[in-house]
């Protein structure tokens, strides 16, 4: 704001100098015949003086339109009027020295009034034109903003539709896969029942392995189903520190990853769904660990708050995310990992957003990534 005012005042001063320069030049021309006469430059006097009364019109006086209109155009109404008054003052001595000064004075005043009126008209036209341009600019900005909003809503919709489709698919796969798993389990059981009384330890063991593998396959289905099932949040008052500790308790941190936890920086409670947000934290932590798994590194977790949000930052020194992938990481089914469905971050984003929060990421390939989860502060806390 301050900067804008400075720019405006610098611009006004520049225009003022231009106006003064134009006035000086015109005034020189205006008084040149009179100066010529005094100095005895008859030819100059003869050449120019008739412009003061060219078919009854003072053509040199008309030149004063230039600074007035310039002032009206560049600076507005008041400067235009002031310039008009200045032209009147500058031309007064000429009127006084003229023989028929009474008539000339009348003409001068009338001319100046007309000049002032035209200046005022130009200034007002210019102002209305500026206002209309500003209005159009504001309108364009508003339209751009609305388009951007709509784009965001549409992106969100596409994301959630994609998620819903994945959920539906998972549900279908879950149902379809569990039937054959059950048949295999039944067959294994029947085989075990049919084994001779002597009991073949190897065969029994093999059937147990088969049964165990059915449990593993079923766990994959269950994880996928649980992962894609998003329920409305049931928000309670929670301490964010507890949620982080709980998420950490679910994850095995390999020895090559060093945890640096500084989560005492915030003591403001939030109202959120603890189960959903713990899932989000666990997902981000586990991603960070995977990003550092090969060469090891450091995962720093810290908390804090501003006026509206409590934030949790997860900064890793892992492989980072290339710029061209940064926008895609929250898309369902986008993954760069050899294993995984590409659902973790898209679900995390949805969970955080449905709890009124935001999830942000800053990353540099080869340097690491920092994910920030922001949750709204409990009102009145």
């Amino acid at each position, binding site marked *: 704001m301050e900067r804008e005012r400075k720019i405006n005042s610098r611009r006004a001063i520049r225009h003022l100098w231009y106006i003064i320069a134009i006035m000086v030049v015109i005034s020189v021309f205006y008084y040149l015949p009179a100066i010529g006469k005094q100095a005895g430059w008859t030819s100059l006097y003869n050449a120019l003086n008739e412009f003061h009364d060219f078919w009854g019109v003072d053509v040199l006086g008309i030149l004063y339109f230039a600074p007035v209109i310039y002032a009206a155009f560049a600076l507005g109404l008041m400067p235009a009027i002031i310039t008009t008054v200045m032209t009147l003052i500058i031309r007064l001595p000429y009127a006084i020295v003229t023989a028929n000064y009474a008539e000339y004075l009348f003409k001068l005043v009338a001319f100046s009034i007309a000049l002032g009126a035209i200046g005022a008209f130009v200034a007002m036209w210019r102002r209305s034109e500026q206002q209309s341009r500003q209005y159009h600019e504001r309108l364009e900005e508003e339209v751009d903003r609305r388009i951007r909003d709509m784009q965001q809503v549409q992106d969100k919709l596409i994301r959630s539709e994609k998620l819903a489709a994945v959920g539906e698919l998972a549900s279908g796969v879950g149902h379809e*896969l569990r039937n054959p798993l*059950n048949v295999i389990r*039944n067959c294994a059981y*029947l085989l075990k029942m049919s084994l001779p009384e002597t009991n073949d330890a190897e065969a029994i063991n093999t059937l147990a392995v088969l049964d165990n593998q059915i449990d593993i396959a079923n766990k994959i289905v269950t994880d996928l*189903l649980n992962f894609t099932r998003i329920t409305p949040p049931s928000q309670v008052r929670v301490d964010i520190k507890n949620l982080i500790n709980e998420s950490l308790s679910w994850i095995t941190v390999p020895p090559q990853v060093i945890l640096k936890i500084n989560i005492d920086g915030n003591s403001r409670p939030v109202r959120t769904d603890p189960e959903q947000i713990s899932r989000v934290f666990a997902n981000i932590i586990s991603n960070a660990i995977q990003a550092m798994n090969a060469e090891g590194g450091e995962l720093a977790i810290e908390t804090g708050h501003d006026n509206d949000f409590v934030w949790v930052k997860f900064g890793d020194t892992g492989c980072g995310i290339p710029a061209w992938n940064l926008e895609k990481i929250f898309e369902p089914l986008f993954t760069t990992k050899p294993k995984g469905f590409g659902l973790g971050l898209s679900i995390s984003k949805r969970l955080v957003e449905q709890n009124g929060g935001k999830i942000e990421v800053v990353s540099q390939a080869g340097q690491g990534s920092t994910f920030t989860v922001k949750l709204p502060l409990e009102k009145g806390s």
Partner: protein
Amino acid sequence: MSHGLTVLVADDNTDLLETFAQILQRSGFLVETAASGVSAIDKCQKRRFDVALMDIVMPGMNGVEASRKIKEMHPGLVIILMTGYSDEALLKTARDEGVQYIVHKPIKIDRLIELIHKAAGNRSVLLIDDDGDINEALEEPSPINNRSHHDS
């Protein structure tokens, strides 16, 4: 070995239906099978069962609807519903309709047999959460089951 408990098994997956029937028969139950909800109701009209083991998702009439109709005919019949994955609303309806047991596929056979014995002999204490598996149900304290004596 025979303990005379009659079990109706209903599932639209023939392989699953047959293998369940074989296992339960070998374990001493008297088993009848039905490949759909409608067929299960028909069987129940013809004779009385101690326990009905029914899949939820079946073409035509689903297990929840079929179990409601069967309950109308035989209020005392114990119904165990099997599910691969069903939505919460359907499971809630099933519980509201008086279905006492909902078990998740792939079902552990030993525990299923144990559950059938327990359910058939203990019709008064019958409550299981759909999130828990049969294991949890069996861990609940229950009255003595006089009719249970199977081995597997």
